[in-house]
């Protein structure tokens, strides 16, 4: 189930990049205000209390990460070079894929 960094001959997919998913985790961890004291009334900036502004910015961060992931980390070459999953209807040994 592990995904190692793809080589130049393998298709690239967003799931192959651990840093991307760490980034998502950090955005969500910052966006949900679990680390703040409940009930606190923050100063208001442009109509948003500060904690909500941080949350909104974390959403922007998630959007940016996703756009980068689909446009930069997902290769078109994958269509031609995809390593197949095992097909229960395939009776040809020797096509056993690497451990994933």
């Amino acid at each position, binding site marked *: 189930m592990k995904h190692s960094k793809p080589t130049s001959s393998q298709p690239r997919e967003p799931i192959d990049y651990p840093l991307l998913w760490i980034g998502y985790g950090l955005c969500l961890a910052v966006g949900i205000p679990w680390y703040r004291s409940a009930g606190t*009334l923050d100063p208001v900036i442009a109509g948003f209390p500060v904690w909500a502004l941080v949350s909104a910015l974390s*959403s922007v961060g*998630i959007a940016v990460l996703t756009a980068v992931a689909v446009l930069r980390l997902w290769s078109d070459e*994958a269509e031609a070079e995809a390593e197949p999953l095992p097909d*229960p209807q395939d009776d040809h040994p020797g096509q056993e894929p690497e451990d994933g």
Partner: protein
Amino acid sequence: MDDLPLGPGAMIILGLYALSLIGVGLWGRLRRAEESLEDHYLAGRSLGLSVLLLTLFATQYSGNTLFGFTGKAYRIGFAWLMSVHAMMAMVVGYLVFAPRLQRLARKWSLITPGDFLLRRFGSHPLRILATLCMIYALANYTLAQLKVMGHAVTGLSGGRIDPLWGVVVLAVIMVLYETLGGMRSVAWTDAVQGLLLFFGFGLLLYLAWTNLGGLPSATPKIVEQAPDKVAVPSSSMCVYWLSMVVLVGIGGSVYPQAIQRIYAAKSGRTLRRSLAFMSVMPLVTTGAVLLLGLIAIPLYPGLDATRSDQVLALVLRDVMTTGAFGYWTVVVLLAAVVAALMSTADSALLSISSMVVRDLYGPYLRKDASEAHLTSVGKIVSWVVIALLVWIASLEKLTLVRLLEIKFEVLIQVAPALYLGTTWKKLDGRAVLSGMVVGLTIALGLWALEIKPLGFHPGVAGLAANTLVTVLLGRFSAPSTPLAAAQR
């Protein structure tokens, strides 16, 4: 929505829209290449960029969601920022399995999610169980759209059209163009209503901001009236926030009609670009709905839970009185809401039809049926299902109302099969099936007993158990596929 002061002009708009749908249906019929499941349900895998991104957008955002989300923002305040995270999480979820699934869809000629499960795992019980879960979730989803559709039509007609007749007429139009043109018609109507919705909400937000006062003037008043809606949320709300992101993000990413749009993309490049567009849409649409709900808090104080769901209608009423521009903006927006409801319902209905014929009827009742026969049966299924759902939607007292609440809780249990099935090469179908059974049992059991373990939704708890069982059994059991057996 029923008592907005709209005149005949709104009816004309609605009538023109309905006629245009029939036209799209006929066009879709003329464009069909063959009488096959791939052509009817996936438009021959030919959806280009503009149509794909707009149909993905329209599929994700329903009119009912928009009304409900505004009400939720009104009730809980700034914490409803969780809705933006949740809608984004759906797109993030696609990144896990969509790249590989899109390639496999062409290689294995996949029509439904059940097709993938059978080809990948070789398990008929798994395919049947997953298909039944997805059909249930989509029927539930369609029912919710139908219930709101009637009231939206009544509102547009200024009370002249009864909600039941509104639902019946729109449902007939919907099934008609879907039967005529399949996915082509559905995708093109999605594209039109997606544009309507996008611009309509942009206009509404502009008018609400300029005429009703924007968020900077609303927030100090909210602090006075309901400070808890502005203050840092409680720990239980934070848990609910995380649970919502997981439930909607993972559950929503495995909507069968969204998966079939992944299948229907013209190419991987088309799909990628569509998803790039989808990644920023929650900031615009869900963000706009959140802002409207917040602005409404000081304008309409003291609404109870039931009336707060109609707060968007109150905003529309006030925007209408700002002048001719406001009036026509509301008319266009209401038409867009009706269109959004229909596009959500028709996408779900088409998907239900495909799963019934491809995953249940075809393989187990008529193994020798031709593609033309299956396509014809699929169209009949659409008519039967919509008639049944319209009847259920018309019931005055829906005693099964609690069953409507558990759409995502059931649907999310299919996620491990897709997420892990596309990424874990040696995962066995028996492990996946066991996990799904355990997950469903726990999710439904907790939901029936109204228990939220540690504050998480029952479906999320079920997903955790589902994933744990799948991973443990997958690690420690040998694959039973013919390929693995040949290698032992």
